[in-house]
C-alpha cells in the first residue's frame, strides 16, 4: 500500500489531519504510530497561542463546528517535543502557520532544520495581519509568492493545506503549484455557524467556526476532483472520512493520500482500522493502490 507524495514514499495513504491528533503521542494507546502513513502534528506558530474563548466546539448534524483558535505550544516547546517522537518510524509532517510572511518564513526555516521533521504542511487559512486580516489562502498572488518564499528557506518537502472558503479553489491550488509546492491538501474546514435558540446566541463564543465531519465529504470530494484535474503535483484529500468507502472514493477521484480528522474523535482507532480495511479490500478486489488512484470514469 506504499504511495508516493512527490519524492516522499509513505507506508500507506492514511494520516491524521492536523489538529485532531495532538502531537501524536496522545494516540499511542490506540495503535502503533509507526504504522501510520504519516503523522501530521498540530499546527505550530512562532510563539505559543492560548486559543479562543470558550465555548469552542459544538455538534451539528453530521459533524461539528470548532473555533479552537489554533491554540498551541509554540515553536520552542515544539522542538523539545519532537525529541519524544524520535522512535516513531514514519514520516513526521509538521503543520505550521503564521500571521505574516516573515512568521511563515522563519517557521519554515527553523522547522526544516529539525532532523525528525520529514515534511512541512503549511496552513494558509490564517488572516494576514499586515493586509487587513485578509486570509492568505484566498488570494492567488499571495499564495504563489508565499509558497515560493517558503520554498527558498525549506529543505524539506512542502505541502500546502488549502482553504475551501475561497472563490475558486483550483486557482489557489495552481498558484501553490506554481510557487513550488510539493503537494496540496484539499481542504481545511468550511466556515459555519450555529445558534442556541433559547439564548438567541451563537453556540460558539467566536460566533463562527470550522465545519468538519461526514457532512462535508461531498463538498470536499468535488474540490479534490477539480484540483486533481488542474494540477500535476499530488493532492491529499481531507474532509469527512469516517469509513473505508469514503477513503476509496477519494482515491478513485485521484487523491494520492487521505487525511482523517474529526473521525479521530468519534473512533480514536479509526486510522489503524482504515489501514487494515483498505489492505483487505485491495486483496479481495485483486487491485494495487495505484490501480485505484485516479480510476474515476467520467
Amino acid at each position, binding site marked *: 500500500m506504499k504511495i508516493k507524495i512527490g519524492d516522499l514514499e509513505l507506508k500507506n495513504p492514511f494520516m491524521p489531519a492536523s489538529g*485532531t*491528533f*495532538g502531537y501524536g503521542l*496522545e*494516540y499511542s*494507546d*490506540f495503535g502503533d504510530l509507526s504504522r501510520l502513513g504519516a503523522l501530521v502534528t498540530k499546527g505550530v506558530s512562532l510563539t505559543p497561542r*492560548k*486559543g479562543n*474563548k*470558550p*465555548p*469552542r*466546539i*459544538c*455538534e*451539528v*448534524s*453530521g*459533524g*461539528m463546528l*470548532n473555533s*479552537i483558535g489554533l*491554540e498551541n505550544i509554540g515553536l520552542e516547546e515544539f522542538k523539545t517535543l519532537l525529541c519524544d517522537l524520535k522512535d516513531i518510524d514514519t514520516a513526521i509532517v509538521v503543520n505550521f502557520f503564521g500571521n505574516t510572511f516573515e512568521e511563515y518564513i522563519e517557521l519554515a526555516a527553523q522547522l526544516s532544520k529539525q532532523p525528525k521533521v520529514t515534511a512541512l504542511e503549511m496552513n494558509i487559512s490564517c488572516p494576514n495581519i499586515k493586509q487587513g486580516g485578509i486570509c492568505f489562502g484566498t488570494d492567488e498572488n499571495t499564495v504563489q509568492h508565499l509558497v515560493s518564499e517558503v520554498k527558498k528557506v525549506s529543505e524539506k518537502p512542502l505541502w500546502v493545506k488549502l482553504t475551501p472558503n475561497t472563490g475558486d479553489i483550483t486557482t489557489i491550488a495552481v498558484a501553490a503549484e506554481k510557487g513550488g509546492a510539493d503537494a496540496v491538501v484539499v481542504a481545511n474546514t468550511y466556515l459555519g455557524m450555529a445558534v442556541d435558540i433559547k439564548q438567541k446566541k451563537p453556540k460558539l463564543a467566536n460566533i463562527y467556526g470550522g465545519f468538519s*465531519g*461526514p*457532512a462535508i465529504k461531498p463538498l470536499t470530494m468535488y474540490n479534490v476532483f477539480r484540483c486533481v484535474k488542474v494540477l500535476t503535483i499530488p493532492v491529499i484529500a481531507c474532509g469527512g472520512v469516517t469509513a473505508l468507502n469514503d477513503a476509496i472514493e477519494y482515491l478513485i477521484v485521484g487523491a494520492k493520500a487521505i487525511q482523517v480528522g*474529526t473521525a*479521530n*474523535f*468519534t*473512533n*480514536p*482507532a479509526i486510522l489503524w482500522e482504515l489501514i487494515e480495511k483498505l489492505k483487505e479490500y485491495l486483496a479481495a478486489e485483486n487491485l494495487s493502490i495505484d490501480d485505484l488512484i485516479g480510476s474515476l470514469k467520467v
Partner: protein
Amino acid sequence: MKLTQGVVFNRKKLNDKTFEIHISLTDSLGEFRSGNFVMLSFENYLTPFLPRPFSIFDLTGNVLKLVFRVVGKGTELLATTKLPFSLKVWGVLGNSFPNFDTGKNVVVAGGLGLVPVFSLNRFVNIERFFVGYKNASEAFLLKELMANYNLTVSTDDGSLYEKGFITEHFERYLMELGNNLLNVYACGPEPFIKRVYEIGKKYNLNNIYASFETVMACGFGVCLGCAVETPYGYVKICKKGPVFNVKEIFG
C-alpha cells in the same frame, strides 16, 4: 487509557428522566476512582455525532455502570434504544477526587451531581453526605445512599425530607461545627458548585474539590474543545480535571 467495545445489556429507570445502564465491555478498562469518566461513542450515527463524557458510577471487572439524565439526543438514545446495543467506550479518563490526611470528609451533591461522588466511601471515609434534589419526583438512589452514608437530604420545594437548597443545610452544618478542618467533595450544576465555593470562602475552607463538566469531543486532551475560562487562563476540563480545587476555577 483503553478503547473497547461495549454492549448495553441492562437498563433501570431511576426516576422519570434518570436511568442506570450496565455495559458489558469486551476488554476491561482497568480500575477507577471517584471522579474518573469514560467517553461513549454511538457507532455510525450522524446525530448524535460526537462522543459523550460520562462519570463512572461503577466499574467492576468488565461491567461498567453509568447513571444519566435524559437531556438531549445522546442520552435519549441511551434511554430508549432496544437492548442490547453496542457502543464504543474509552477510558478510564481524567483525574479523581483526592485523599486527605487530616480533617473530616464531607460530600455535597446536587441532583445528578451525586453520580461521581456516589462511590467515594470506597476510597475515603465520609463523615456526612448532603444531597439535594429539586423535588420528590427527581430523587434517585436514595435507598442506596441511606444504606451507605450518614445522609442529609433536602428538596428545593420540601416535597421530600428537608425543605430548601442542600447548600443551606451544608452551611448550617458548618456553623454548628465551628471549625474549618473539613474537606469537601462537591458535584452538581455549576451555579451549585459556585455556591459551595462561596460558602467555603466564608468559612475559610481550603479543600473544596468539585467535578466539573463541559462539552468535549475526545476526552483525552486533543480536541482542546473543553477549555473553560478561569481567572488564571483557560483550563482543559478533560485533561487537568474534571476534578479541581474550586479555587482553581473560580479564583
